[in-house]
């Protein structure tokens, strides 16, 4: 039985003092500097082997047979033609006849063959007879009162209404009220490396190379699904082309090859193609919010009443935080999950936050105009009190100066000509506190160091954190340190998700390294004529604190170990990391009113993550987050054919993604808070770019912007709707 998660923060231990992140002034820091990724050269030169690149002797290739229908009952499955096809070694039934497929791309069966092309061709020869059933391809269709029963437990599921304060009094206190409906759309994760795995059995032991955000989590799930001992499963993931939340589940692309490999007595590989990836590897749910909100004459938010809904596909929820960050003393919110026949949502980088952020931030700009206040002023008046984990007011003021907010014109660019410019802002918040992770450190007598941790690097640079932390702590040169991650035979670590990986493992590596260093001090102290407590390590030397000229070079010190290496272990402990971050973003755009085309010209992101371990890695998280959110605002849009429920753009062509030239100047300001310890930064930067961009578009055009994505035709429609309603500036 699983434990309820998560856990409250326990109290710091004595290790928190002993191995605190502070660095003595007589030493050069490694932590907080810009250390390039240790595996960067391997990645850019192609030496890094991703799961996609794994090839095992005698390996077969599996390919799924998937439903072309959004909803159907499987009447029969006929494998005879497929079995006779060249190279085919085996078939597997994933869903039995009589059961239903619930979306286009739902897995029915699989085929394994000698080569991938053979498997692809053979999968098409599996004849599945379907009885086509009613389906929904939109939230609106599923919400019709007379809609057919597609989901027997309800096509929709209403959540509890949450209410705080006195709504009537809130609206009574309002000088202005606004009613509007906001919405965001479904996007998919689009990991560059699609979901894939290679499974190989040796007796009753399974080795699985999986593109996964959690080698340990995958191990447990695979064992559970196959009903074998977790100790008999080893999961390896050395390099990974992105997950964004979609690679936590051990799903068909792992379990199918695991089962077929057992049956067929050969390693089996399964790699999804881009279409399968779009259809059946997760997505971010849609969000709709019908909001009524009130604001006082002096710009204090008084009331918020929101009815929300959204879809996470065939049977999954779509909730999101609302209102987001800003304080409405009186508020009510009722949410309904709507089920439609599409692939299922999975956590996607800051689940729920971009949606809640969009609704709230767009609403705030409209309220600011009603009151006649600068939108930044309105925000400053309604933020939660400033605290180390709630620094928005300070960041907004800082950012306004750096970005040139004083050059922002009031809503609606009055300059003649078709190209309008605008600015927008938006805030974000995230938890990002990890609490589990173990590490092992070994100092070899030749001075080389092995650091092991069963975390994994989903592209964030996790591997590089091991030498950064161990190098800081041991004082060993970085190139003497070898980092091992991405293997479930290594010490336990949690999933790389929820921005918890770094705060989860960094304390363990710090403690293990600290213990190893202390053990080394004990073994070499006599050679320096000092007591172990009098020693310090740094810059490649072990030295006497009081007399740094009495020192040993790192390798010379290690030589004194004789033939006996030092080993030390560490576990996450409180006191090295914390939870809750805040950030703000500014956006500047141009909008061509004759084409509807939005170009983002500048983004400023101010973000904190406690102690910055590696500046390059932290900044790269912000770049990636901003670009992802820009894609959400402008480009990505899962488009379904309304009459067939079939996805029209399961590719990277009509499913638009920013290219290099579509990415603007991005300025990142990392706010150092070393005293708070390590906090994750993977998610918060992707929360607010989209709403900052959308508000900048609103500022440029002077028309309400209430839904994403900002495709040209939708921007033109927003302009037209406003003009036709006789509107001046919004």
């Amino acid at each position, binding site marked *: 039985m699983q434990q309820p998660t998560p856990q409250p923060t326990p109290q710091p231990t004595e290790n928190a003092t002993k191995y605190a992140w502070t660095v003595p002034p007589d030493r050069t820091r490694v932590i907080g500097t810009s250390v390039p990724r240790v595996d960067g050269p391997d990645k850019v030169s192609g030496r890094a082997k991703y799961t996609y690149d794994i090839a095992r002797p005698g390996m077969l290739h599996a390919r799924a047979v998937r439903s072309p229908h959004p909803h159907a009952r499987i009447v029969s499955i006929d494998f005879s033609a497929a079995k006779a096809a060249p190279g085919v070694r085996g078939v597997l039934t994933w869903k039995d006849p009589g059961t239903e497929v619930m979306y286009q791309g739902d897995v029915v069966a699989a085929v394994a063959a000698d080569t991938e092309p053979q498997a692809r061709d053979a999968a098409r020869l599996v004849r599945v007879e379907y009885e086509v059933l009613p389906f929904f391809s939109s939230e609106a269709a599923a919400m019709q009162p007379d809609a057919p029963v597609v989901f027997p437990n309800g096509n929709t599921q209403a959540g509890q209404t949450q209410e705080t304060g006195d709504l009537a009094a809130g609206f009574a206190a309002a000088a202005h009220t606004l009613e509007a409906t906001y919405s965001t759309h479904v996007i998919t994760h689009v990991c560059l490396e699609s979901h894939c795995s290679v499974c190989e059995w040796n007796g009753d032991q399974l080795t699985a190379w999986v593109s996964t955000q959690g080698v340990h989590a995958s191990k447990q799930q695979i064992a559970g699904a196959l009903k074998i001992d977790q100790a008999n499963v080893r999961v390896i993931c050395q390099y990974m082309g992105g997950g964004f939340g979609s690679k936590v589940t051990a799903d068909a692309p792992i379990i199918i090859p695991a089962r077929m490999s057992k049956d067929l007595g050969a390693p089996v590989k399964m790699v999804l193609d881009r279409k399968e990836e779009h259809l059946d590897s997760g997505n971010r749910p849609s969000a709709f919010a019908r909001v009524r909100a009130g604001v006082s004459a002096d710009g204090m938010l008084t009331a918020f009443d929101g009815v929300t809904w959204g879809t996470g596909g065939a049977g999954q929820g779509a909730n999101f935080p609302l209102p987001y960050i800003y304080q409405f003393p009186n508020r009510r919110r009722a949410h309904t999950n709507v089920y439609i026949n599409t692939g299922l949502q999975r956590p996607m980088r800051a689940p729920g936050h971009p949606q809640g952020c969009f609704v709230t931030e767009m609403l705030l700009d409209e309220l600011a105009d009603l009151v006649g206040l600068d939108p930044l002023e309105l925000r400053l008046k309604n933020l939660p009190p400033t605290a180390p984990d709630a620094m928005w007011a300070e960041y907004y003021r800082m950012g306004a100066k750096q970005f040139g907010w004083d050059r922002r014109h009031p809503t609606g660019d009055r300059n003649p000509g078709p190209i309008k410019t605008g600015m927008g802002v938006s805030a974000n918040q995230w938890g990002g506190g990890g609490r589990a992770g173990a590490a092992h450190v070994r100092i070899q007598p030749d001075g080389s160091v092995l650091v092991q941790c069963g975390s994994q690097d989903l592209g964030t640079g996790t591997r590089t954190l091991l030498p950064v932390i161990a190098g800081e702590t041991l004082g060993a040169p970085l190139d003497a340190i070898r980092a091992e991650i991405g293997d479930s035979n290594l010490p336990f670590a949690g999933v790389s998700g929820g921005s918890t990986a770094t705060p989860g493992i960094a304390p363990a590596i710090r403690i293990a390294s600290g213990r190893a260093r202390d053990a080394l001090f004990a073994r070499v102290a006599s050679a320096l004529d000092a007591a172990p407590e009098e020693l310090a390590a740094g810059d490649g030397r072990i030295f006497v604190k009081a007399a740094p000229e009495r020192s040993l070079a790192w390798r010379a010190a290690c030589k004194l170990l004789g033939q006996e290496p030092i080993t030390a272990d560490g576990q996450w402990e409180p006191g090295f990391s914390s939870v809750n971050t805040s950030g703000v973003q500014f956006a500047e755009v141009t909008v061509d009113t004759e084409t509807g085309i939005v170009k983002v010209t500048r983004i400023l992101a101010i973000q904190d993550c406690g102690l910055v371990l590696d500046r390059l890695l932290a900044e790269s998280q912000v770049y990636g987050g901003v670009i992802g959110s820009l894609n959400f605002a402008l480009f990505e849009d899962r488009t379904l054919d309304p009459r067939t429920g079939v996805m029209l753009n399961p590719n990277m062509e009509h499913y638009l993604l920013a*290219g*290099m030239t579509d990415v603007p100047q991005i300025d990142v300001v990392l706010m150092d808070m070393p005293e708070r310890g390590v906090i994750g930064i993977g998610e918060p930067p992707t929360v607010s770019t989209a709403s900052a961009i959308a508000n900048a578009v609103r500022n440029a055009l002077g028309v309400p912007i209430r839904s994403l994505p900002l495709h040209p*035709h939708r921007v033109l429609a927003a302009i037209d709707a406003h003009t036709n309603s006789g509107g001046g500036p919004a």
Partner: protein
Amino acid sequence: MKAFAYVNPSNESDALAALRSGGIVRPLGGGQDLLARLKDYLDEPDRLVSVKGALNREAAATGDGGLRIGAAMRLFEVAEHPEILKRYPALAEAASTVGSPQIRHQGTVGGNLNQRPRCWYFRQEEFVCFKKGGNRCFAADGENQYHSIFGNDGPSKIVHPSSLAVPLVAYGARFRLASASGEREVAAADYFTLPSMQTVQKENVLADDELLTHVILPAPGNVRSGHYEVRFKESRDWPMAFATVVLAMNGPSIDSARVVLGAVAPVPWRAEDAERVLRGRLLDDAAADVAGEAAVRGAKPLAQNAYKIRITRTAVKRAVLAAAGRSV
């Protein structure tokens, strides 16, 4: 993907002979369209005949002051060719924005002109539409935001995908087509065909055993040309609407005009109303405005693409301004 035989002839006549070697045979240029269609199970030829090494890859002057471009010329070469840049700048510009640098380095002139539609129903196997031998056009009442606003009375609502076709029609180019039994020349404007129930599975008059071997451009004369593409993304994307204008000048005023629209119709679309209103006008802002207005007269949007009228008007206006040497 169905296994196919691969033929790599080194000259035109061998290539033409290979086209008649039986079964379904397709010429292969850079493969940027064809290989994707094979992988998506949209086409299942028995044989591919590579024409990259068989067809001409140069741009050579013709006796009457024009230019003759071999169909194997790569798109990046079209974009960078000094004569094309100087005398047919709209063509060079159109070639320079296609897809991405990789696509422009692989893609050929012949492949660009003969590529199949990018309609998202056509490109998804699940939809067996008129173009694939089915009995309906899914875009007619489906997601048709990227479909045609002109020439869409026929069975298919596609827009022609070729960027090069539009300036070529505007410059009055002709195409040389050859088969093992002879050759012919067809005006670019007559090469592309509006879909009828009989012709809906093709976009042009090319026969299965023919190749497009050359593009022949007439001497430009005293013209100014302008080209404008309304593009959302700056790379790896398709223009939402675009226009080439070629203006024969008489001093400061326009003697005659060719205005051709792209991504709005199943063929490169001549905007004859716009050509008429430009005739005899000074080349100025007002000319750009009236040409834009005239160009979209008669547009018949589908349910979701009325916005294309506005961006088409913008494209024409800006193409005229570009011809006048002005940017937006």
